[in-house]
């Protein structure tokens, strides 16, 4: 008994399960990818050799990479900003626990529990240039119709719209949970302090919601940078890479062109990029967040 206790009290034994899982499923693959990124490894021919930084140099010379990078940044910026602002506005209107609010909340949340495939297929119908309802509506208002994901000009916008729509319900839920955790008596104190609607919104609600919004910001950035399903299902990165995002591009190189070395190098660059953004984020916003 004493022996068992002694073993159990050993901290290294206590954290071992987590460490083993992280090592096998995260740490080892990362290190493996770093190694592969310095190789020319063709998975079809089965040849591999060390080539140093050649993969990285090739990527920087590749105009598609720069285009994909640009697309990813635009995609992330719009999905994150519009997604959060829209969620905040909708959350403000739906925060009271009235029956109608709960109903709308459920409806908005539904896309989140649907599979990405059905959501995307539905939007492809809506956005169909010939028979889609979106173009029908545009025509009805006398506006010029769009080619949506069929055209290089609008394909990125199309996947941005679908991504925002799919993630909105979750964001609204989180915003509402945050709003409801602000005590009612704080608002009553503000009323007695003669605070008007806008003053209350900007001086009371927004600062007290900032931890929630910061959480949403981080999770939205991570999910928008790693977006894959919408691209893969709707546009396959096309036309002419106009809607290609970095994760899908890495997948194309690794699993369609079978160039695992270059794909690994792309992954490593992607990891570095996301880390830098996370650090900037934290440094910039942490001071503006009011934890209670």
């Amino acid at each position, binding site marked *: 008994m004493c022996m068992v206790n002694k073993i159990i009290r050993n901290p290294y034994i206590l954290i071992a399960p987590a460490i083993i899982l992280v090592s096998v499923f995260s740490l080892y693959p990362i290190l493996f990818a770093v190694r592969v990124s310095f190789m020319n490894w063709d998975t079809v021919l089965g040849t591999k050799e060390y080539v140093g930084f050649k993969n990285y140099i090739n990527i920087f010379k590749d105009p598609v990479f720069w285009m994909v990078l640009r697309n990813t940044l635009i995609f992330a910026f719009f999905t994150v900003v519009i997604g959060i602002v829209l969620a905040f506005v909708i959350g403000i209107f739906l925060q009271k626990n009235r029956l109608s609010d709960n109903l709308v909340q459920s409806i908005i949340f539904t896309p989140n529990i649907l599979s990405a495939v059905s959501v995307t297929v539905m939007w492809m119908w809506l956005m169909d240039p010939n028979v889609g309802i979106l173009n029908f509506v545009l025509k009805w208002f006398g506006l010029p119709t769009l080619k949506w994901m069929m055209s290089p000009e609008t394909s990125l916008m199309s996947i941005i719209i679908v991504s925002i729509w799919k993630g909105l319900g979750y964001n609204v839920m989180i915003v509402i949970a945050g709003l409801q955790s602000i005590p009612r008596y704080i608002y*009553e*104190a*503000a*009323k*007695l*302090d*003669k*605070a008007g609607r806008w003053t209350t919104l900007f001086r009371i609600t927004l600062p*007290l919601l900032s931890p929630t919004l910061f959480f949403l910001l981080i999770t939205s950035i991570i999910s928008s940078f790693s977006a894959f399903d919408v691209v893969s299902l709707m546009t396959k990165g096309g036309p002419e890479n106009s809607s290609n995002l970095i994760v899908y591009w890495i997948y194309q190189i690794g699993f369609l062109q079978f160039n695992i070395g270059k794909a690994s190098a792309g992954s490593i660059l992607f990891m570095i990029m996301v880390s830098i953004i996370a650090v900037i984020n934290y440094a910039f916003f942490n001071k503006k967040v009011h934890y*209670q």
Partner: protein
Amino acid sequence: MSSIRLEKVTKTYSNGKTVIENLELEIKERSFTVLLGPSGCGKTTALRMIAGLEEVSAGQIYIGDRNVTKTEPGDRGISMVFQNYAIYPHMTVRKNIEFGLKNMKIVKEEIAKRVTQVVNMVGLKDYLNAKPSMLSGGQRQRIALSRAMSKKPQVFLMDEPLSNLDAKLRNQMRGELIDLHRELKSTFVFVTHDQIEAMTMATNIVIFNNGSIMQQGTPKEVYENPANLFVATFIGDPGMNTVELPKIGTIGYRAHKVKLTKSANFHGIQAAGMVMTKEMLGMDHLYRIATGLGTVLMKCEEELNIGEQVTLYISENDMYFFDVFEKRSRDMMLIESAFHSLSLMEGVTVTSDHVIGNVHG
């Protein structure tokens, strides 16, 4: 002008429950009025209606001469201190105080002056730039107080502001609030369920039960002259002992008026009993004694042991009589039949041909 008047005020919630019906209440200018009652009696609702945080279903509310029934909370010339302080957690002490003043469009210099003034009054001047999360419960309540004072309101509304503080701090804050009331010369309306708070601070007590006012008066009046059985048993620590006499009414007497010795010229009742429990209260003891009158609470300095046989003497002068509707009664017929019915109880002797004229009150 800072008196408050509630005329036929009714509050019905959206679920159809009426918590206050036709409430008539007058709170005097510059008084320290405590609304006292058990939880759920409507005292907080009444306060929140005065503040404007709760809509009035029917009736009118006046502050001074002004009908404020439909006025926004911020325009009523009041300040409120909440039970859980309700300070803004993301603002420093200074910002907390300034927030309301800025909304009132007061000029900068005046704001700065008032902030300095109020933090000096409550002893927070070293914490002006601290966030509330760094401060203790007592200090947070002081932020709320100074925020309320900075607006220089005619009326201070306080909703159980001391109940989240520990006992020692509560005692201290009670004293400070009394001083504050004297200094500010404005009307204080204070809600509590703690009768010690009410008795120590109030110039006026309004006792609530089930949404209506049971009695209104000075602490001394409600203690010495309870208008009904509810007030008699609610006020005092402990509340009055009672003996229910079917079809006649109820007799009440205070625990510290129960004596172990017979005084000269004793008129009253005498009851044999046995000590059941003993509580040490410092100088006094509180005993529960089983007698023919039921369980009697006695407060005295004498040392008794549990199980000891005692004889208790309760003077007629210390007794209060209530009719079957629980209203205070001085009706001689009632008193006489009460004594008669007491004399029939086991182990109880009525030791006088009682002189009714002596009855208290």
